[in-house]
């Protein structure tokens, strides 16, 4: 397995579930086919992809009329069940965060869970700690 660069990773993690009425092969393919990704992910911006472990991708996500560079390398490519890549953007301050997408088949469709972890804080030297996400979630609820 391709190693993550744990030292450059921040302490934050988010997880987003989504359900689709399409087979895992099609949902997975929409992530790894450049023409498809150009349509829904990059919103018409430039897409370069080499979906194999350590292959690179570049997305010029169009946002507010100008391309925002996002790039990374694939860590795990296991069609049609698992896709994992690093994610670098101006928001990650040039550091690698990691996006993991799990595709679980169900009757007539696919359940997807996208997890984005290693989101950087403003001080990358900080050690990330177990339980931090739980802490933040609990706190967000309590202070809401």
């Amino acid at each position, binding site marked *: 397995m391709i190693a993550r660069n744990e030292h450059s990773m921040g*302490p*934050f993690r*988010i997880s*987003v579930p*989504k359900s*689709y*009425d*399409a087979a895992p092969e*099609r*949902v997975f393919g*929409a992530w790894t086919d450049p023409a*498809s990704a150009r*349509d*829904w*992910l990059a*919103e018409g911006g430039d897409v370069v992809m080499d979906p194999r472990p350590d292959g690179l991708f570049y997305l010029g996500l169009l946002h507010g009329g100008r391309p925002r560079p996002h790039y990374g390398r694939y860590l795990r490519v296991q069609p049609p069940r698992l896709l994992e890549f690093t994610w670098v953007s101006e*928001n990650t301050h040039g550091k690698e965060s990691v996006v993991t997408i799990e595709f679980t088949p169900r009757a007539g469709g696919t359940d*997807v869970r*996208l997890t*984005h972890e290693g*989101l950087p*804080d*403003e*001080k990358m030297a*900080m*050690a990330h*700690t177990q339980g*931090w996400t739980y*802490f*933040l979630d*609990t*706190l*967000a609820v*309590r*202070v*809401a």
Partner: protein
Amino acid sequence: MSKLDLAFAALADPTRRRIVAHLTRGETRVTDLARPFAMSLNAVSKHVKTLERAGLVRRTRRGREHFLKLRAQPLRDVADWTAQYERFWTRRLDALGGFLARQKESRDDRPQ
């Protein structure tokens, strides 16, 4: 450093996170805070100062006692910051749903 930077920096320390978690139960005397953490009052005071600078807690003095209270806004800012990513991916995953639906339609339209 911005307010958010200070909040992140203050919360990067596990002891300070435990202090903040403790304060979610309500106002606490600084002396009572030292006890469950098995720390000297001096050590606790240092952590409290860092939290104060980040605007995460407010210290009030009544007589000889110092009381600590949690301030919610910086914590909300931290939560909002991570929520930006959640919104980004939620929008993108929704867009993928639209794409898959269009793809299916154009397939169905194809002459048999």
